[in-house]
């Protein structure tokens, strides 16, 4: 089974700071990590490979330093890694990003499954995974919490919903985005880390892809970030004190006065 995992390098969310003037993320000096949701996708891919044989290729689009995330993924059990990196990709929105990744996937050999985290912890859009499947014209199942059955033709998966879960059967190849309920990612292994250190990362630029130049980067992005801002903090509520009947009475009066 050939599996592709798409990952993203994100700032470590435990120490995110916002520039008070520009209202953008301060990325300087902030440690970059594999998007936490993608760690579950990596683990699931490696587990599938261990069960069924085959190969896991990890793919990312990002700046040159995203190579570190790919190496970490190799340390966790992925076999090969591809970094798609070019100044021409700068400013890509989720459409252009998923188009670029889809072009890279077409260049890879045949695959059975693509796994993505359900969303990235920085942008939180949850659109790139589904976008890739649209560009490749393959089925997608999002929010997968369990792959119950899988063979070379089809998969039966559990898709998390707000009320419970759907059981979905899909032909392969298919793209799944996964939620954290799907597994517990393993710790890296020393042998994996050593393999990662020695591993050769395949690097592709825009010229290596069979891509329409006008669909890449900022030019290929139909959406624009107009403004990023920190929402006004909510103003403190009003405290009502007294016995419970007094409090209830006053609250009722206040509510009457408001348009609720």
């Amino acid at each position, binding site marked *: 089974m050939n599996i592709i995992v798409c990952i993203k390098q994100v700032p470590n969310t435990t120490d995110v700071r916002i520039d008070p003037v520009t209202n953008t993320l301060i990325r300087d000096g902030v440690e970059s990590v594999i998007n936490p949701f993608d760690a579950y996708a990596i683990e699931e891919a490696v587990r599938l490979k261990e069960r069924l044989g085959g190969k896991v290729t990890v793919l990312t689009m990002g700046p040159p330093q995203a190579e570190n995330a790919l190496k970490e993924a190799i340390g966790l059990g992925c076999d090969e890694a591809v970094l798609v990196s070019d100044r021409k990709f700068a400013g890509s929105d989720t459409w252009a990003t998923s188009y670029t990744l889809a072009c890279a996937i077409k260049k890879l050999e045949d695959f059975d499954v693509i796994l993505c985290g359900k969303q990235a912890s920085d942008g939180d859009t949850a659109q790139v995974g589904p976008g890739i499947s649209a560009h490749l014209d393959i089925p997608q199942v999002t929010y997968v919490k369990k792959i119950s059955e899988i063979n070379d033709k089809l998969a039966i998966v559990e898709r998390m919903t707000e009320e419970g879960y759907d059981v979905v059967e899909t032909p392969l190849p298919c793209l799944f985005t996964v939620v954290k309920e799907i597994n517990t990612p393993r*710790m*890296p*292994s*020393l042998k994996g880390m050593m393999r990662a250190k020695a591993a050769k990362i395949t690097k592709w630029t825009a010229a290596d892809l069979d891509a329409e130049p006008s669909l890449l980067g900022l030019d290929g992005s139909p959406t624009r970030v107009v403004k990023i801002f920190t929402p006004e903090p909510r103003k403190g509520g009003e405290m009502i004190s007294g016995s419970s009947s007094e409090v209830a009475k006053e609250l009722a009066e206040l509510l009457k006065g408001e348009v609720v």
Partner: protein
Amino acid sequence: MDYMLTDTQAMIRDLARKIAQEKIKPVAAHYDETEEFAWPIMKILAESDLFGVYIPEQYGGLGGGILDMCLVTEELSRACGGIALGYAGTGLGTLPILQHGSEEQKKKYLPDIAKGKRLAAFCLTEAEAGSDAGAIKTTARKEGDKYILNGTKQWITNAGEAEIYTVIAITDKAKGIRGASAFIVEKGTKGMEFGKKEKKMGIRASATREVIFTDCEVPAANLISREGMGFIVAMKTLDTSRPGVAAQAVGIGQGALDCALDYSRTRVQFGVPISSFQAVQHMLADMGTQIEAARALAYSVARMADAGVKSMSKESAMAKLFASDVAMKVAVDAVQIMGGYGYMRDYPAEKFMRDAKITQIYEGTNQIQRNVIAANMIKETLKK
């Protein structure tokens, strides 16, 4: 302090730290309370290849040495000295095979140990042979191509959980300690049983049991080295394992200091964090300095072992003695800085204090270490 570790050693330390902080620290109190053996953690250590750091590559390890083992032991102990002992006790049980075993024995046992598939244990101590290790009574009688073991080993770390035991037994009573021999005994061998699990003050996540041999038949091929080499195997093993005890002590001390330092910065009394009081600062400074000195000594002796220095009993004893005394003192001071909270079992400081105590006792009490150190010092003056 920068110990000029190799890239691989830094990687080993960082991974051990990550596992200790993310996986062990949250469950340390649970295993201390229940005295269960932390198999889920052993599985993580195994999958991360940490059991193989000191085992040569041809036997499936990573080809490092005692320093690599010490780095792992220290980091694990910084989260839990008891859980760390599942790892370090395996190292102790493995060293006789690693240092004195035949090629066949190494091929047979080391790959499983390197993978963490099987834990190991070292069986020397008996009820009447503690500091006086030469007084062991367990016997091994040769019959054809077998040895028949009889006797009871006491307070054996990992006993019952481990699958590979290196056992010191007397093959020739007339020769005294020169009549001792070392054997590999696998769990499940007929005539080998385990006593009840001991209830301990600290390192409660570690399993300690008697190992009882009753006409236990061991293939002659399981003899390590030659007959009569048992005591030498044991002493060489302890010379190389003591830096590991030192590393465990450094880890426990560091763990205790971590708690006290965090606490001192958040605990407000008289309107300020207690870390602003010079009385507390001076305690923290002493603790930090002593731990660093212990670490420097432990690493230096581990490096001696890795460089193949033959005679290192004195230095090895010094590292174990100094680091364990530091661990005890630092842990007591950590509890003191934390006051009433330090005494409560809701906080880990008191556990570090209970765990620290054993490092002054096992693998030779600190009084025995002083004997070894002084004896070597005196011997050195005679040589001049």
